[in-house]
Structure formats: structure tokens, C-alpha cells
């Protein structure tokens, strides 16, 4: 990690911990705005964030949907007919 640190964070590790806690949450807070400022200046943290984002996107994109056939098997196993 580099030493390009926003004054509100003491280390890039703190930035990563903060990202860990707030990834995907509402970004409209003072702390998140400070984080964005740090990311715009720190290529290491920015790359880390970007790669996590891409990894999550890939994970989501490669999951299939629950099929109609599987739904029917489930309803059958629960003893429920379509017209119930």
C-alpha cells in the first residue's frame, strides 16, 4: 500500500477496513465523501475497490435464475398445485 493518506484516515488499511464495512451502503455521508476523496488520490486503494467491485459483479452475473421447472418440483414437494 502507498502512503498517500487522506488526513481522516491514518493508513490505507483503515481505508480498506472502512470499505469493508460500508461497501454497497449509502454513499451519501461525510465519511463516504472523504473515502471517495482518498480513492481519487490513492491508486492502490482505488484498484483494490475496483477489483472487488468487478469480482462481485462476476459472482452475481454467473448465477443462474430459479427455473420454472425447479419451481414446479418445489411446489410438488410441498403438495401445492398451481390452481390452489
Amino acid at each position, binding site marked *: 500500500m502507498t502512503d498517500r493518506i487522506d488526513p481522516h484516515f491514518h493508513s490505507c488499511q483503515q481505508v*480498506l477496513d472502512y470499505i469493508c464495512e460500508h461497501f454497497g451502503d449509502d454513499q451519501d455521508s461525510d465519511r463516504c465523501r472523504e473515502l471517495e476523496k482518498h480513492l481519487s488520490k490513492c491508486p492502490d*486503494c482505488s484498484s483494490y475497490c475496483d477489483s472487488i467491485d*468487478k469480482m462481485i459483479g*462476476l459472482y*452475481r452475473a454467473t*448465477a443462474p435464475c430459479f427455473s420454472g421447472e*425447479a419451481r414446479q418440483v418445489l411446489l410438488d414437494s410441498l403438495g401445492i398445485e398451481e390452481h390452489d
Partner: protein
Amino acid sequence: MSKEEEAAIIERAKAGDKQAIKVLVDEYAPVIFRFSYNICRNQDKAEHATQETFLSILKKLNQFDNRSKFSTWLYTIVSNHCLMLARSEKTRRHQSIDDDEGSVPEIPVEHWEHDPEVSMERADLKEHLDEAIDKLAPEYKVIFVLRDIEGLSTEEVSNITNLSVPAVKSRLHRARSFLRNELAPIFSEHTHD
């Protein structure tokens, strides 16, 4: 479905109303399937886990007391079910990323030039991802999937897994870093000399 509508459907389902149970199936079976699939990365196993989880949910429905969100309760049941299944598959060896100290190791950062969602054939990508996920211990997979894939809050994940918030954060960081490092050779702009 509003919270009030959901509560009414649950009460009807508790009384054995098949129409209400079908509403719960249509609302939550896709969620349970997606979660199960993201833990085991196998469609047949995920469909089976969805079926088993739903049977379990209907058996325990009278125990649900509306003190927590229904979805949180469902995630608790399906998480336990997936963990139980994973632990029963004793032939698999997961890489240890435990650390009792609670600190997270420094991560070498490389820029991922390629967007993995668009840069390679989907089947090829999926294979690499599944291999990486397969190496991750189920206790870490559950945290990663609940927090990052399902988008639950750290507090919700803590309630579902019965772990402290710091333990959830630590496991999440480790799981992310482990998967990222496993996938890095495929997606990095360059490799270390």
C-alpha cells in the same frame, strides 16, 4: 410486498393456506436458490437445498414471531442448511485463511485491467470463479455471499451467523482478499516478476 402484506401472508401460511404458501414460494424460493447456488455453485445441489430449506421453513413457520425480518429468518435457516451440507462433504479441503489475532494481512494490489464480466468467455470465467470459491471455507463463503452478493448489512449478517460484528468484518475482508488473490492472475494487467 409490504411488511403488513407479508405478515398477513405468513399468518395465513401458518394456518396451512396453500395459496399463501405459494406466495411465499414465489417471493422467496428464488432468493433461497440464489443464495444456495452462490454457496455450492452447483445448480442441482442448489435446487435440492432450496427444496429442503422450504420444507424446513414450513415446519418451523410457527416459531417465526415477527421480531426479526422474515428474510433474516430465512437466511438463517438456509445458511445453517448450506453449512451443514458443506461440512458433510468431508472430502473437500479448503484453504485456511483463519487468523485468531483478528488482523487482516496486507494485500498486494494489482490493477485489474479487464472487466471480468465482459472480457472473457462466460463459461471460462465461471470455471475460474467456481474453482476459487471451492477453495474457500464455507464459513467464509456464507459471510461473503450474505454481505456482498445479497447486500445485507454487517449487523444483519452478524445476527444471521451468530458472530460478532468485528468477526463478520474480519471474515469478510479475508474472504474478499482470498477470492481476489485467487482471481488476480487471470484478470491482472501484469503479474509479479
